[in-house]
């Protein structure tokens, strides 16, 4: 029984006031200790025992499980202490032994095992060795603090406070110092054992055991731990007076959900499914009318006239006369009229049919394509030829059979794509407005105009109402901005809306400010500065805090990170929420 109590203390378990709980703890602890690395258990006991031997000068039974447990615990704490900066590991073992033996004085009395008693009596020698220079302190339950009766030691640099000229310690500080063997605690003029101190000093009014466990753990690791004081953090109003750093994200653009405008020009080109005849065909025909030597077949001719007659059903007189004049003037622009429901977009600016710069009827480029009906080209004029070259009449009909000699290697995908294009892709010239362009400038201007119209020609009920399309095409300059426009889940900052009046702050609160150990040399209790982290102590079994709680804590903590210390039967794990940004396109 004694060993179980001891073990539990060593692990900073609550001292088991009801003895029934002790059994459970014992098994629990033994399981845990058994799970520890074997090698430590084997080496460390000997060292611990060796130390005990030097102090007591007595033979100890090393087989005792209690000793093994104790030494294991010492080892654990010893490693923790070795991490600590300002706690020298060399005298640590002694301190631990002191506190252990003291606290177990009462437990030991009840212990029946004589060998265990011998262990503890061996350790008792160690306390007696240095109990003289302990700082004396008195527990004042009404004030909830510990008043020092003799001048404080070195610990005063990072602990305690002065009230009405008296040096005081907070309960957790006092218990910790007691555990360390630095003070001797009195209550009603009687010294308190560690167990009693646990019971008396640690309560819901002062500091819970849970909080104390975290406190002492951090202290052992060398951190400077202070109670969190909410007043030290600025109020929302104060914060507003300063920089609105927490409002950073509220200035984002008002993204509206918009729908894409796919309907923009559906009616345009709707019925333009027919193929337009190639220009060359017409060129050839005109050449024929001019009396030149074109080889137009009669079939083509009749076909043409038929088409012509079909076209005679006018819907728009102007258009028709235009058509005719085109045919006379420059046959290039003369095409089979498309569906009459064509767009009238640029009808104003392109009403007057201009001649293209070049008259390719007169300027006859030899062409071997099958859609070109002209096969004979006259002998070129002398002045067009370089010297020493005699031109000749040219008949391309022979060459027509000699194109496509190079075999094209196409992959299956390319072939499919070509087929698709052949079937669905329309000629740019199927558009009447394009046909009325007669130079690149006009063509480019038209394309530009169309782009603009696409933007300006919007039905007002779609674009000016509350509900508008998800995407505004002109605002999209990159895929990143598009994604941003259509994004439904928006990234938010943890402090968004956290400044709202905080109800039930009771749910969770920050317990400690933790300062880094290396600051100990120039640490000042009066102006501790910005803590390294703020600690919120929770039980492991408790639920993960909800977003509101996290927000509130973060807000309380200002720009200091909040860390959750989760206590699981004496094991302490630290967790923190990480703020991260979704990746964005860095080039825009």
């Amino acid at each position, binding site marked *: 029984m004694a060993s179980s109590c001891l073990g539990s203390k060593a692990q900073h378990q609550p001292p088991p006031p009801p003895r029934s709980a002790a059994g459970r703890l014992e098994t629990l602890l033994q399981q845990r200790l058994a799970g520890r690395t074997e090698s430590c258990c084997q080496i460390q006991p000997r060292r611990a025992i060796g130390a005990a031997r030097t102090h007591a000068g007595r033979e100890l039974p090393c087989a005792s499980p209690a000793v093994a447990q104790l030494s294991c615990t010492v080892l654990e704490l010893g490693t923790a202490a070795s991490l600590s900066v300002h706690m020298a590991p060399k005298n640590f073992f002694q301190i631990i032994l002191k506190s252990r033996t003291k606290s177990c004085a009462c437990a030991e009395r009840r212990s029946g095992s004589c060998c265990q008693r011998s262990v503890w009596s061996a350790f008792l020698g160690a306390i007696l060795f240095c109990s003289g220079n302990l700082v004396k302190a008195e527990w004042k339950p009404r004030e909830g603090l510990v008043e020092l009766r003799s001048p404080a030691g070195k610990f005063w640099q990072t602990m305690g406070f002065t009230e009405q000229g008296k040096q005081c310690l907070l309960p957790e500080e006092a218990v910790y110092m007691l555990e360390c063997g630095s003070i001797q605690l009195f209550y009603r003029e009687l010294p308190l054992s560690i167990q009693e101190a646990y019971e008396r000093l640690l309560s819901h009014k002062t500091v819970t055991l849970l909080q104390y466990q975290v406190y002492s753990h951090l202290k052992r690791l060398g951190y400077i731990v202070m109670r969190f004081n909410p007043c030290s953090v600025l109020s929302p109003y104060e914060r507003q007076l300063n920089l609105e750093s927490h409002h950073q994200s509220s200035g984002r653009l008002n993204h509206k959900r918009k729908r894409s405008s796919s309907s923009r020009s559906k009616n345009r080109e709707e019925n333009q499914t027919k193929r337009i005849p*190639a220009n060359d065909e017409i060129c050839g025909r005109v050449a024929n009318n001019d009396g030149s030597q074109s080889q137009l077949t009669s079939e083509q001719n009749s076909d043409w006239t038929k088409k012509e007659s079909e076209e005679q059903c006018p819907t728009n007189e102007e258009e028709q006369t235009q058509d005719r004049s085109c045919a006379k003037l420059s046959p*290039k*622009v003369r095409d089979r009229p498309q569906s009459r429901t064509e767009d009238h977009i640029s009808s104003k600016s392109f009403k007057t049919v201009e001649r*293209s*710069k*070049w008259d*390719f009827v*007169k*300027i*006859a*480029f*030899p*062409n*071997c*394509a*099958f859609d*070109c009906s002209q096969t004979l*080209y006259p002998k*070129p004029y002398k002045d*067009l*030829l*370089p*010297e*020493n*070259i*005699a*031109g000749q009449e040219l008949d*391309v009909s022979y*060459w027509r059979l000699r*194109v*496509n*000699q*190079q075999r*094209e290697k*196409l992959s299956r995908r*390319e072939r499919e*794509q*070509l087929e698709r294009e052949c079937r669905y*892709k*329309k*000629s*740019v*010239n199927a558009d009447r407005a*394009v*046909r009325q*362009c*007669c*130079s*690149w400038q006009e063509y480019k201007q038209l394309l530009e105009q169309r782009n603009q119209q696409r933007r300006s020609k919007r039905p007002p009920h779609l674009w000016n109402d509350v509900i508008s399309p998800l995407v505004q095409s002109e605002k999209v300059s*990159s*895929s990143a901005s*598009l*994604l*941003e426009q259509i994004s439904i889940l928006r990234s938010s900052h943890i402090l968004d809306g956290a400044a709202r009046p905080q109800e039930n702050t009771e749910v969770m609160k920050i317990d400690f400010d933790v300062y880094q150990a290396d600051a100990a040399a120039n640490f000042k209790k009066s102006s501790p500065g910005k803590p390294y982290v703020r600690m919120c102590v929770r039980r492991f079994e408790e639920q993960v805090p909800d977003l509101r709680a996290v927000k509130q804590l973060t807000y309380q903590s200002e720009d200091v990170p909040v860390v959750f210390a989760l206590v699981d039967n004496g094991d302490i794990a630290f967790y923190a929420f990480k703020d991260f940004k*979704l*990746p*964005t*396109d*860095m*080039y825009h």
Partner: protein
Amino acid sequence: MTEESGEEKRTATVKYELEKETELRFEVEASQTVQMELLSGMAEVFGTELTRNKKFIFDAGCKMAVFTWHGCTVQLSGHAEVAYISKDTPMLLYLNTHTALEQMRQQAEKEDERGPRVMVVGPTNVGKSTLCRLLLNYGVRTGRRPTYVDLDVGQGSISIPGTMGALYIERPADVEEGFSVQAPLVYHFGSTTPGTNIKLYNKITSRLAEIFNQRCEVNRRASVSGCVINTCGWVKSSGYQALVHAASAFEVDVVVVLDQERLYNEMKRDLPHFVRIVLLPKSGGVVERSKDFRRECRDDRIREYFYGFRGCFYPHAFDVRFSDVKIYKIGAPTIPDSCLPLGMSQEDNQLKLVPVTPGRDMVHHLLSVSTADSIEENISETSVAGFIVVTGVDLERQVFTILSPAPRPLPKGILLIMDIRFMDLK
């Protein structure tokens, strides 16, 4: 193919009697040379007239065609691999194309307009470059000053492969050497296929068009004479889109499609009606060039840049300190789409200037010396002063050894690295 004297000639000297409008085609054997002499009559090689009784020497791998409009006698001495006379030549078609262009130039001159801009398109191995050379030569011979725009990054007939450029043509091409390259406008592309960075390709195309327009504004003769644009043999998907883009950028008046009806139809579909698109057959003399042969040609081209035609130049080799230059690569390396951050597309990186740390892997790479003074200038759209090749890198001394056409120091400190490598072996 009609061959009149099809027997392979390996003897030292052979005389060929050419009838009018026929062509003598021959190839030079590997590691051999062929001497050609025009004995009587008139003949031309790709539009350049031959001088009578002058001996022309062609190197190994040369594929030549001597055409005569009037009939001539040609003597070949050396080892010609295949030598035959062909009647079957589309020269008349090409000549008519030239006369049509000339008509346009005359009209442009009369009406104070811009002259014809021709783009020659077609798949690989159809004789695009040859047709360009022909049209340019005929243009110069009729007293014009056309501009040759070369968008074919694969062969690079103006400068070295991996570049795009423009050249103002003032005299017919040399029979042996080709066009004399004096003050060409060259832009760095960095690779032998436009597919590696199609965005950059299109951007340089636009830039060239812009520069050409500027020249046309100040030089009336250049404006009237127009330009002939040579293109890549890649005529599918992105390559095709690049062609349409080039046509639009240069505002071409005529597109000559060589030997592919599909391309002809697509061009008709995607270019506005006022652009004249014609389909012409390829010449029977055009030989299929293998990949290896193309690579060799590229190497020869680069060697010629450094060592001159038949080794008439002596390049300089010297050390350059790493700290003296800044080396960049245009376009960040492509990463798979799945690895890209959300909302980022591959093309965003294509025009980015990525600094290159000098290292061993730079050996044999070609570097373009940019004319830009600082990184703030738009480097990808800045022309190139010249090229150097890295022959060695010494990491310890922090220097690299380069082969340069000019002595030290380098004119500018900004270098652009190419994917193309050149081994200085021969």
